[in-house]
């Protein structure tokens, strides 16, 4: 079972070490961890995606909540989450394959960040699933390098829509 845990922390030096250290020390299974600023410059949001059985996930939440720098911990159920992730992918190719690859990049709707004679770097932002789809689509070619940010999430608010 997978769970998204959104953690608001005091923006202090060392706070990431405290959270990351706790997770490894207690042997929790973390799929991704992403941190960044929030609307309040004193507060950072850390989004963890954790795998495990329910009692373990419950412990993770409680242990994280116990950290002194942690202001709030919100486990977000997948169905109530808005999620997003960003990835940069560099593919290399022989000149003969170039048009084929450009075709696929177009089909997948990926943005080209950089292009060379024998390689291209594309960017995709979206759900974890759409990133997986893009990786799958490019995998017949040589993926030279890849960077993923890890999932970020916010809970779905009832009366709010991005329209």
């Amino acid at each position, binding site marked *: 079972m997978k769970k998204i845990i959104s953690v608001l922390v*005091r923006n202090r*030096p*060392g706070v990431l070490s405290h959270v990351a250290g706790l997770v490894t*020390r207690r042997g929790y299974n973390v799929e991704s961890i992403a941190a960044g600023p929030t609307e309040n410059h004193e507060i950072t949001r850390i989004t963890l995606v954790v795998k495990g059985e329910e009692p373990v996930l419950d412990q993770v939440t409680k242990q994280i909540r116990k950290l002194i720098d942690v202001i709030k911990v919100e486990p977000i159920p997948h169905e109530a989450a808005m999620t997003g992730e960003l990835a940069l992918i560099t593919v290399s190719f022989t000149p003969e394959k170039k048009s084929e690859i450009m075709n696929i990049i177009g089909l997948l709707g990926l943005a080209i960040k950089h292009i060379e004679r024998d390689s291209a770097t594309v960017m995709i932002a979206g759900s974890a699933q759409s990133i997986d789809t893009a990786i799958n689509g490019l995998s017949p070619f040589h993926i030279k390098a890849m960077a993923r940010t890890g999932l970020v999430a916010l809970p779905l608010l009832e009366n709010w829509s991005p329209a």
Partner: protein
Amino acid sequence: MSATKQGSPPPAPKGEVSGAEAIIRFLGDHGADLVFGYPGGAVIPLYDAMFGSNVRHVLCRHEQGAAHAADGFARASGRTGVVFATSGPGATNLVTGLANAHMDSVPLVAITGQVSTTSIGTDSFQEADIYGITIPITKYNYLVKEPGDLLDVLAEAFHLASSGRPGPVLVDVPKDIQVAQIRYHKPSPPAIPGYVPRPQPSADEVAALAEAVHRSMRPVFYVGGGAASTGVHREILKLAEGSDVAVATSLLAKGVFPDAHELSLGLPGMHGAKYANLAINESDLIIGLGVRFDDRVVGDVRRFAPLARIGHVDVDPAEIGKRLSVDLPVTGDLKLVLDMLAKKLKPSGRPEWRARIAELKAAYPLAVPESGPSGKIKPQALVKAVSDATGGEAVTVTDVGQHQMWAAQLIRSVKPRRFLSSGGLGTMGYGLPAAMGAALSEPGVPTVLIAGDGGIQMNIQELATVRENDVPVKIIVSNNGCLGMVRQWQQFFFGRRYSSTVFGYNPDFARIAQAYDIPARRIEDPSGLAEAVSDLVRSDGPGLLDVAVDPEENVLPMIPAGKGQTDFFGEG
């Protein structure tokens, strides 16, 4: 070269003090006027500021000793212990002491020197990332990077160490911060968003607990260190007597409930009395009070108290449900919960349960074996002699090993904060410095240390501190010539292959003590035991008694690790 560059620093502007002076003033203003520590290059300004101040420093002979001394001071007095160390090796020498205090939730503040902020990260002389190193073994820690933050950090550190579930806090102070000039001010009261040191218990949860007690025929309180540190022994006694609840005390709670009480089960678990574990096994309601249900008590969570509903009261929500699933959880400050519970509970006698406990106790007493023809002093008899000589009134400190478990079984404690032992970490070498710290916390309270011949050597250098400060610690070495507890496991579970557990050589402990000008003697004959122990306890100043005990004795009963409450070793 101009004169001002060499001489003493220019006088500080009015109202300003150095960071080091601010630390010392802060400690004085907050009643932390006894500090254990060891100086070095990165804390010279701090020690300079302390020189001639109203803060008393006890110079230990090793930073580990200083940390354990501060720990013993804190456990005995309930006040926050303070320890100083220099950067690098001084700071890393604190690690075991901090981990020990962390495991047992002891309020400590460690102040370490660090290389200057401008040198941090360059592998400069005696630089160690003690902030990074101590993240997992402190409740919280700080690296002070701005002089202006120092006082607020100190206030927060003391607040965190002593509130909620207590624990050690480390404050790493670079040398340039110690010499920077700052304005001394009363720090603002700590406001830490999301930190709730005294959670208000839910009335519904407490009501459910009360209801469970009403319906229970065979209730047990399983009491832990949280009850000792919050001082709720009177509340527990009243509730237990009012409703005939049997009371088991973890190692850290020893003394919270009088051992001699009819309802007392004493220590449960691996080396608990058989009657304690059998009572737990028969119980229909176990209520944990500030306790961890740790693996030395609950070896097999699936088979623990099969007939019982489990209630658990703790200030730390992460403890509830950590090891076993709980039917009746209550998150909250123990004192608040017990007061609420007292209002809800209708006292009622359970004569059958009382009778059953008396019956179990009579059937399976904790026996002290006779010396017999071997003519050797039995270590259990030694511990019993200590209990008899002190009447349980003394602060009794142990080290770690067999002697520790016999002490837990056989010392008849009557009060909390009078039995100190390293529980969660099981740190050999804890005893001597901790006893020293305890004795310094309250002059006049006799302090007795029972240590093994292994553990006493792990911080034996503190005999110098004991002598220098004339600390009246009565040291008893339970000398079995071996690392008894490990030897016992090898005997039981590794075919008597005594790999590196039997000493081929031991020093003469009495002569070691004498070299430190501490009066000492050695005894071997059972007939002189009671008198020798009582003479030591009644003597003035420090003293050491080296007692040759039977090396063959084992701590029994024993439930092997990971086993259920009735899986007594050697039966079936």
